[in-house]
């Protein structure tokens, strides 16, 4: 039996239930009205996962909803954690185990109560906690038996659910510091989720072909887009291609900002977080 599957059988049922229900929170009403109606409502990110978690952490002992929201965020952002640990020099197997243990610490311990009250963003708080966790692990020389006592991550299921779309060079992987790779993976996760949601929306309307053809032009300059050729490919008038592309960009923008909004306490921080992630990827700082 696969070792992760075997471990999963031993893990905490309630957490696992949160993690394996793919739409655990996505189907909830956090932003569903705006997200599903198809009409972009910029700035309408009233309650985010992170703000829900932080408000729940204020009360004595995190409630079920708070812990489910935290588990969902961890499920989404496991790749940056894993990439960071790997870059610190651990073997793939040890990195898997440490990722497991880190999530267990976050979810089964009282991480939220011990987190810095000034809080900040989920990304920066998680990275700081991960650095501390690895320092502790190094002190203990990580002598635990492989596999640990509890399993949080089902690698097979998670990778099957959301295979990474990021293309990264070996040179970058081997030369960039762990903190920057963490940010790159984080940025990729945000973008991947926005693209996936856009794709699913087109698919639900039976227009997957529209996504497949036009998504390649989401960031293209106006002069680089041949609406004549695209109209022929899609079998629709040129005017329709222009409208579709315009609205796809609008919708993508909204979905991207929605994804980021879930990781910050204040919706007003979305712009800053996006700017930070852009700067982390800047060629000039490579």
């Amino acid at each position, binding site marked *: 039996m696969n070792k992760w599957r075997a471990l999963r059988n031993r893990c905490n049922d309630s957490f696992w239930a949160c993690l394996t229900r793919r739409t655990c929170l996505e189907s909830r009403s956090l932003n569903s009205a705006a997200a599903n109606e*198809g*009409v972009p409502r910029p700035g309408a990110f009233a309650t985010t996962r992170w703000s829900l978690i932080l408000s729940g952490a204020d009360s004595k002992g995190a409630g079920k909803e708070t812990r489910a929201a935290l588990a969902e965020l961890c499920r989404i952002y496991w790749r940056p954690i894993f*990439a960071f640990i790997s870059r610190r*020099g651990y073997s793939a197997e040890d990195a898997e185990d440490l990722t497991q243990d880190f999530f267990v610490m976050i979810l089964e311990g009282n991480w939220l109560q011990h987190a810095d009250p000034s809080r900040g963003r989920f990304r920066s708080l998680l990275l700081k906690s991960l650095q501390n966790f690895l320092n502790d692990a190094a002190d203990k020389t990580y002598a635990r038996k492989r596999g640990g006592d509890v399993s949080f991550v089902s690698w097979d299921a998670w990778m099957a659910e959301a295979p990474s779309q*990021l293309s990264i*060079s070996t040179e*970058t992987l081997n030369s960039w510091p762990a903190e920057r790779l963490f940010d790159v993976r984080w940025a990729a996760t945000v973008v991947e989720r926005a693209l996936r949601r856009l794709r699913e929306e087109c698919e639900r309307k039976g227009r997957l072909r529209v996504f497949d053809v036009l998504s390649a032009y989401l960031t293209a300059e106006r002069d680089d887009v041949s609406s004549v050729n695209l109209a022929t490919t899609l079998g629709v008038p040129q005017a329709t291609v222009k*409208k*579709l592309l315009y609205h796809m960009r609008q919708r993508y923008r909204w979905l991207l900002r929605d994804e980021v909004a879930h990781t910050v306490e204040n919706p007003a921080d979305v712009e800053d977080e996006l700017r930070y992630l852009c700067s982390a990827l800047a060629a000039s700082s490579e």
Partner: protein
Amino acid sequence: MNLYGLTDSHATITNQPDECPHCESAFRMSCGLCLRCLLQAGLTEDEDSGSESLDTLLSQIE
């Protein structure tokens, strides 16, 4: 350090970084789009798109 074998990225490692002609970043998504440009798109000014949405438009295609 050789990071080949990273559990979640062995299929996405490239030998030749393909720099974006616009921002020169070397991170690409599998669809070919530049990761940084895709992020930057979230910072563009929101134009008034009227009442028509992508959802509506997709429904109207013949």
